[in-house]
């Protein structure tokens, strides 16, 4: 840096000193260039091959499941209750159970997750404690789901005595996907350009007004996209429910959040286990998988549509 306006002298001296600097002479290695062009083409094919590989595996899986479910998947399958006769069995209970589960998971994760993200991004002073919390939330997102099941079993199932009710399952699932919602919301909030916040503050807005009127509306598509993906994970998750002891056979369709319930993935799990006894259960499991995939497909499409439609450019 410069001092007392003498920068001029120093700067111009540096300029003069460097003015004569020349690039050293070198030749471009033609042979290496050939190799590099080959490498470039090769890597392109390698990458497309890996993409194709993933698609092929998915295709085989889908084909297998759909062909097994053919003839079994119809409206009756969706509306019938469980039955010991495979021809009469349906997934009404599991569908309703899954819907109930989402009725707990969606509000709990959205409220807690978005609030946490707002706190971490907008309010917390970026000190050591905030950093510690952030690192831990990111770590939580990669904890195996069965661990969350154990946590849910001991805290919600045993200590709070909720048993294997919808509330216990819903809260456990919420814990499982909460870190994903927090991280996704944090990223969406962080992506809101600082100059928009500045504009709001400069007009005399306080922090909460700025967050509510400027930050959240801009971040909302990102938050929704992340949340929908997280929630669709909760729909498909099995392990925590198994640990909670969610039954597959329920004779009573749940009517409130304290009732016992079963859910789609659990249904699939038990039907798959019982194929030894009744081979047709494999078809029922396949049909349930198709239903679950359909739900996930719709939710993921919604996430993509929201992202594309509301993405704002600055």
């Amino acid at each position: 840096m410069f001092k007392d306006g003498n920068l001029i002298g120093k700067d111009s001296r540096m300029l003069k000193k460097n003015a004569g600097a020349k690039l050293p002479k070198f030749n471009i290695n033609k042979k290496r260039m050939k190799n590099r062009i080959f490498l470039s083409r090769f890597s392109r094919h390698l990458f497309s091959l890996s993409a194709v590989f993933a698609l092929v595996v998915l295709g085989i899986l889908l084909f297998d499941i759909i062909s097994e479910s053919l003839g079994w998947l119809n409206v009756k399958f969706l509306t019938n209750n469980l039955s010991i006769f495979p021809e009469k069995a349906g997934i009404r209970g599991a569908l309703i159970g899954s819907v109930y589960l989402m009725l707990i998971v969606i509000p709990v994760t959205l409220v807690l997750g978005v609030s946490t993200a707002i706190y971490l991004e907008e309010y917390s002073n970026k000190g050591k404690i905030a950093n510690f919390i952030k690192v831990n939330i990111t770590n939580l997102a990669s904890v195996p789901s069965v661990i969350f099941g154990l946590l849910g079993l001991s805290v919600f199932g045993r200590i709070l005595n909720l048993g294997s009710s919808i509330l216990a399952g819903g809260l456990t699932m919420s814990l499982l996907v909460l870190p994903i919602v927090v991280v996704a919301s944090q990223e969406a909030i962080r992506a809101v350009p600082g100059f928009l916040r500045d504009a709001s503050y400069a007009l005399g807005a306080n922090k909460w007004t700025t967050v509510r009127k400027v930050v959240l509306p801009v971040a909302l598509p990102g938050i929704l996209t992340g949340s929908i993906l997280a929630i669709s994970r909760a729909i498909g998750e099995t392990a925590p429910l198994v640990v909670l002891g969610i039954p597959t056979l329920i004779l009573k369709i749940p009517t409130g959040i304290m009732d016992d319930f079963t859910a789609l993935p659990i249904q699939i799990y038990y039907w798959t286990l019982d194929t030894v006894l009744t081979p047709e259960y494999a078809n029922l499991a396949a049909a349930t998988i198709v239903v679950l995939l359909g739900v996930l497909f719709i939710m993921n499409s919604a996430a993509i549509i929201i992202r594309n439609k509301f993405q704002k450019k600055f």
Partner: protein
Amino acid sequence: MSIANEKKKEAVYDVRGLNLWYGEDQALKDINMEIEENKVTAIIGPSGCGKSTFIKTLNRMVENIPIVRTTGEILYHGDNIFDKSVKVEELRTKVGMVFQKPNPFPKSIFENVVYGPKIHGIKDKGLLMEIAESSLRSAALWDEVKDRLNDNAYGLSGGQQQRLCIARCLAVQPDVILMDEPTSALDPIATFKIEELIESLKKDYTISIVTHSMQQAARISDKTAFFLMGELIEYDSTSVIFSNPKDKKTEDYITGRFG
């Protein structure tokens, strides 16, 4: 503040012994200057001289950077803005700011202009419309946007966006407008329009403008302050600064010998 207002003091701002640090680095060193009412005060100086920091201190926007520390006083109509009794939200309704890059909200043109009045509690639709129209007229934008007030502000050109930001700032009825290089992202025609606008706003507002362009400072300002290395080197009427500066460093800078 209102009582002080009635005294009709000539100086809107009286900066006394202002020092500012970003962490360990001192960005402003013992600044003393008065900003006069209904005048355009230009602040010039090379990059990193503290001119933007200074202007952002006047509405305390600089405090959004957590590591900033200040000493000294800035009297706004006689009240120290660093005083605990001063609400920063209230100060910023009196002291508006226009930024380097046009920064409209991703909302409609109308919603942009009435953002300030709305957050300060005005709900009456007719009144909001009146505010929007008069602010847009004052910012010389009304004729260009009156038929598309509900269109997104990002459909406007850069120059129009910047005038929209000025309108948005006028809508909260400030008494000072701080401008931080408002034309540096604009083409010459848009720049010319903004400069004309500044001329016309002068009679109702006190304007302080940071600029990299010395021609701009010479064209539009009544007084010019030259900053260097965080110090206020010279502060005088614009004609003196550009024709007969007292300090050698000022002369070197305005004649383009450095910076």
